[in-house]
């Protein structure tokens, strides 16, 4: 009894929060509303890729392909409905949106099945190349298929999907979290840890890998369908390799295998560039000096951390000397840069600066915390992620 009360309570809460976010989106500008939808979609993409990459350990770097399959399925369905006069150009009614999402879930799941099958034979970098290739082939095929809009793209009537985006996000997170709490989830993790040992323990490695691909890509497909109705227009440029890499970066940054990590990293990596959009232009020499200083500082801390393994604190005299060198080095670089005619008195516009900062954050993360923000741990409301996979 209590079990079902908690269950329906949490589902109700998730629906309520989704509609809450929807109301915020409705009350704010078009840009904010769009960002709220995209944030949810990216969290879904990251969490679903985490199921394949982090939890099952299958290195897939073509997640945008499944996103694309879903998105185009929905757009194609909408164009059929439009031509039959079922929906009008003014907008897609929500029931039809949900039908499209369900269809996309299935088509992307089938695509995942087809990509999951070769993964039985391949591992590591080889699988990565296959998934990458699949994404690129799909994109180029669609680009050259006039029926799917070719390189122009497809228009589909818009719908206000923000609440549904977040419901999908909660569903995806919920499914992953549920899985990790059961023996089934452990069988996924065991495949990541050691395939030979898992099969010797009776885990059907083949089935686990395919299941991970199907579930992960189905969620990406559903996210794609919602993207279609949120944007009202899609083309292949929304599904380039960059998108796959951003999603992959979110998973790695969050800590492969950690659901919470994927969520936090997805939100951070999505919001960071948006916030930095308004950053002021900076003098080039100052930027170079700062970067040099940070590089030296990160190097110092990394070295200190390596020594810490020997039972020392990282705050030893050498660390302070390193920090001093980092500060001095930064100033020296900045002054020197201003002396070079080619570099002097130039500024970096904010649009480019944000990519510099973005990259620097990633490099720093990988040096100082290669296991990701959360490592393999989970964090959350008391029992929400209580015992995940560590």
């Amino acid at each position: 009894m209590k079990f079902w009360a908690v269950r329906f309570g949490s589902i109700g809460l998730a629906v309520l929060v989704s509609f809450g976010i929807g109301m915020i989106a409705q009350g704010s500008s078009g840009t904010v509303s769009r960002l709220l939808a995209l944030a949810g979609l990216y969290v879904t993409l990251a969490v679903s890729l985490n199921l394949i990459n982090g939890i099952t350990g299958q290195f897939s770097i073509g997640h945008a392909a499944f996103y694309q399959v879903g998105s185009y399925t929905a757009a194609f369905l909408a164009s059929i409905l439009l031509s039959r006069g079922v929906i009008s150009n003014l907008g897609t009614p929500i029931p039809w949106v949900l039908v499209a999402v369900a269809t996309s879930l299935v088509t992307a799941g089938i695509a995942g099945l087809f990509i999951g099958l070769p993964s039985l034979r391949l591992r590591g970098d080889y699988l990565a190349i296959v998934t990458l290739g699949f994404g690129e082939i799909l994109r180029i095929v669609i680009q050259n298929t006039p029926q799917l809009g070719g390189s122009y793209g497809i228009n589909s009537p818009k719908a206000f999907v923000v609440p549904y985006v977040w419901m999908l996000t909660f569903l995806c997170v919920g499914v992953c979290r549920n899985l990790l709490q059961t023996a089934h989830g452990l069988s996924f993790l065991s495949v990541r840890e050691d395939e030979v040992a898992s099969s010797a323990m009776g885990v059907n490695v083949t089935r686990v890998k395919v299941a991970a691909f199907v579930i992960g890509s189905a969620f990406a497909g559903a996210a794609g369908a919602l993207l279609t109705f949120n944007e009202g227009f899609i083309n292949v440029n929304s599904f380039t390799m960059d998108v796959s890499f951003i999603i992959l970066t979110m998973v790695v940054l969050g800590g492969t295998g950690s659901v919470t990590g994927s969520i936090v990293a997805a939100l951070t990596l999505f919001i960071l560039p948006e916030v930095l959009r308004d950053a002021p232009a900076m003098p080039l020499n100052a930027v170079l000096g700062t970067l040099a200083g940070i590089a030296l500082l990160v190097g110092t801390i990394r070295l200190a951390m390596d020594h810490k393994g020997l039972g020392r604190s990282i705050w030893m005299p050498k660390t302070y000397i390193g920090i001093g060198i980092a500060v001095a080095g930064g100033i020296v670089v900045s002054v020197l840069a201003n002396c070079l005619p080619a570099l002097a008195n130039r500024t970096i516009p904010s649009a480019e600066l944000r990519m510099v900062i973005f990259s620097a954050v990633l490099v720093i993360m990988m040096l100082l915390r290669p296991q990701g923000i959360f490592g393999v741990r989970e964090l959350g409301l008391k029992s929400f992620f209580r015992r995940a996979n560590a």
Partner: protein
Amino acid sequence: MPDPILSLQNATIQFGGLVAVDNVTFDINPGELFGLIGPNGAGKTTCFNLVTGVYKPTSGNILFKGKVINGIPPHKVAKLGIARTFQNIRLFGALSVLDNVVIGGFLRNQTNIFASMAYLPGAIRETERLRDQAMALLEVMDLADEANGRASDLPYGKQRRLEIARAMATQPDLLLLDEPAAGMNPQESEDLMNTVRKLRDDFGKTVLLIEHDMKFVMNLCERIVVLDHGEEIARGVPVEIRSHPEVIKAYLGEAC
């Protein structure tokens, strides 16, 4: 004479020109403690890999409970009732000690993946059941205190015991132990010997083990087969093996 639980009948496997296991034939009776020994590279682990379905024999048959199991994939062999440990420990390092054993029990899991995804009461109960079973096995293997630690953080001897606990969780009839005492100090291997005996006496398991620690094998096993270069060179009870000229030659060389 009961029917053998495992029989190798002229089992042979060839990798290119190398015959790793050559015409090996032996029967193991239910409830036996059976030893497989031989110098490095004799083909002992390959025998294990043949039995557990990692390799398919080039010729000959492997029978488990009277049924031919050649070429059946490892996860199905495990389900039939053969579990193994590995020479170079293969635990799920990043997972907890308890979870390692839970995964061992997963093959007798009764729920489907959708129930787990929806976290239905059936899936929760099943997971709880596997967890209880795993905990009980950790008690047997004297690892209960470490249940929540990371498997890779365990000291070497305990990792080996955890592998046995994990294999036991699959509820096997036949347990294959690949060098269970490797890297253990005398006290640890003494304890392990008692544990393995307990697995047979209290749990009715049949045990086939590979071991280089002669004291361990001679004290524990009831029958022994000796392999060298893939071929059987001797078989018998420990006393016979100890003084068998071929065995001494294989281990110590011609001059002795």
